[in-house]
């Protein structure tokens, strides 16, 4: 596995109806470069799947899309990310509405050490999305239901979110994110800790959300990618190797690296 010299992304990384566009993005952790010159569009109402071997930079790239990398001191980014044609790395841009518009589900579930209710209500509260208690209760219930967690927690909404099982925590984090009703949702392996049924539910949710929103999802499951996404982007060692319609990627990958990965011929 080595870096491809003078690499140009194979396939169709750009989209005519781009909601989010990355342009020549490089990301560095200290001296170490984690993303190399990635340009990619995510279209409106599109679900794009990011796949690639562990450590290839999927999470890093995803985090550039709502400036979550800002919180890592040693992380430096060059290039542009445009949301509705506005560069989000413009110094004038406020990360608050940005992140409210571009929500994120993290790879490791990170519930707040608060009650389940407060975990979900947190976003709507800070953004003032609910007028009063009743509306807030509604938002919380709806979000938990959509994340498939409602039945399991409805009679312990005030128990701490940290006392949930791994999969429950993950769904709690999904519920927390959709409660803010973002335009773009970035999901970093949202189903990794979920059983098939819960996974199906989340996939259903993604399908449903797609009608209104734009979604980028990191996944290791090609089946999942195949089920939920329209396009798939394959990352390799920090480079974006290929972007193509999902069925094409999984049936006739253009790049040899993609093919090798899809067919499991690595290592």
């Amino acid at each position, binding site marked *: 596995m080595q870096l491809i010299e003078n690499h140009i992304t194979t396939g169709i990384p750009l989209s005519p109806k781009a909601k989010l566009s990355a342009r020549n993005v490089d990301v560095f952790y200290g001296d170490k470069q984690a993303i190399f010159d990635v340009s990619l569009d995510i279209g409106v109402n599109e679900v794009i799947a990011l796949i690639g071997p562990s450590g290839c930079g999927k999470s890093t790239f995803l985090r550039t899309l709502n400036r979550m990398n800002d919180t890592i001191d040693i992380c430096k980014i060059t290039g542009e990310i445009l949301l509705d044609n506005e560069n989000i790395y413009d110094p004038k841009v406020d990360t608050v509405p940005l*992140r409210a518009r571009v929500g994120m589900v993290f790879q490791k579930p990170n519930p707040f050490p608060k009650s389940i209710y407060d975990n979900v209500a947190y976003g709507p509260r800070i953004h003032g999305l609910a007028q009063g208690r009743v509306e807030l209760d509604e938002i919380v219930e709806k979000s938990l239901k959509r994340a498939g967690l409602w039945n399991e927690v409805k009679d312990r909404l005030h128990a701490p979110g940290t006392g949930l099982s791994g999969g429950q925590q993950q769904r709690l984090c999904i519920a927390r994110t959709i409660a803010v009703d973002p335009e773009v949702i970035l999901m970093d392996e949202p189903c990794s800790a979920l059983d098939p049924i819960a996974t199906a539910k989340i996939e259903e949710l993604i399908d449903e959300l797609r009608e209104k929103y734009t979604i980028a999802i990191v996944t290791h499951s090609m089946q999942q990618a195949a089920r939920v996404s329209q396009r798939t982007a394959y990352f390799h060692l920090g480079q974006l190797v290929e972007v193509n319609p999902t069925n094409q990627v999984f049936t006739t990958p253009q790049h040899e690296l993609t093919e090798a990965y899809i067919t499991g011929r690595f290592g």
Partner: protein
Amino acid sequence: MNFSSLIIIVIIVLGGAYFLGRNRARTVSNQGLRMHSLPGHYGALMALWTGVPALILLLTWHLLEGPVIDHLLITQLPAHIQAADPAQIQLAISKVYNLAAGTGLAPDPSLMPAVEHLAALNERTLILNSGIALSLCLICCAVTYRRIKPALRARTEMETIVNLLLLSSSGIAVLTTVGILASVAFEAWMFFQQVNPLDFLFGTTWSPQVALRADQSGSSGSFGAVPLFAGTLLISFIAMIIAIPVGLMAAIYLSEYASSNVRQYAKPALEVLAGIPTVVYGFFAALTVAPFIRVLGTDLGFDVSSESALAAGLVMGVMIIPFVSSLSDDVINAVPQSLRDGSYGLGATKNETIRQVVIPAALPGIVGAVMLAVSRAIGETMIVAMAAGLAANLTANPLDSVTTVTVQIVTLLVGDQEFDSPKTLAAFALGLVLFLSTLVLNFIALKIVQKYREQYD
């Protein structure tokens, strides 16, 4: 060879024992036997067994040595002194010591036997002392050495000893409490013999001027502690109004906003505030802040006394800022980054994240820091004595002069004491009551923390 070099020798032996034990364990395990613990554990166990008993013995001996030698010396004193009262004997012994040390006293032939005996004793006890300590070292060492077998649960045993040491450390804290209660209880009791506890607890005049019979007109020796506690509350309150917001905001700023460079220097710089001697703060409060407040207040039409609770409280607040800022900064810093990420990811601003996620997660530590600061404020004397005066006014007006419990304790104890009058005994009663009232305060704080604690991760 004296006591301290003996201790150093024991410590060296202890170090040797560690390597001995470790090597022994290695040898045993090289014979193909599976050891219960690591060679290092056996070494540490050896070291503990070798050092701890000997050190305990040495310390005990060191504490007892004086009385024992004195006792032995008494037999060598001239008969007429032996027959005299204890004070005489005590004196004679002191003299023997000074004669033996050759500090220029006129020699006293009748004491010469004792002086010579002392020299002999000193020599003998030293030999005895080092002999016993070192043989104890060696014996324990040898016994443990022989015990090193695969079945010996060295780690468990070592950990048990370590746990005992840990336990006894917290025992010291408990003993301190017992000691404090014991050292104030007797005098406090004496005080309550003379002054009705109810008058003390609920009386509203504090005036430890000459104590007088109650039935006399013009009597002003009264011991009502309410104004003192009120003053303590007032001043601590003012101090906390400065210290909590400033300290907490500084902690937040340093751990969440400031660049690591700023934090690196600002935090220790603030910590210097805690170490400036209180006399300095006292002068500053009395000569700079108090006149300033007075001028300002008078201009604004208030009646400000030249010593004011405000001046003392403000300066005290500055002094305890680092207690809040540094300790809070540490616990805030310990909150996992993933929690912050979770909040930022939802579009929270930095201050929302801090206020709603980080602070609640760090709450126990912050409350601890604040309690420590309050404690420091309650225990502070010099600033109050210099800037707020010593007059026990029962008032809630921060522009008035007030005094605090601690200040009264100190002035009563360092002023012209009268060991048997309530004037001095009152200090002990105040100490006791203060102790009990802060106990209640701490109890409440603990309950609050337990209730609101948010365990992260």
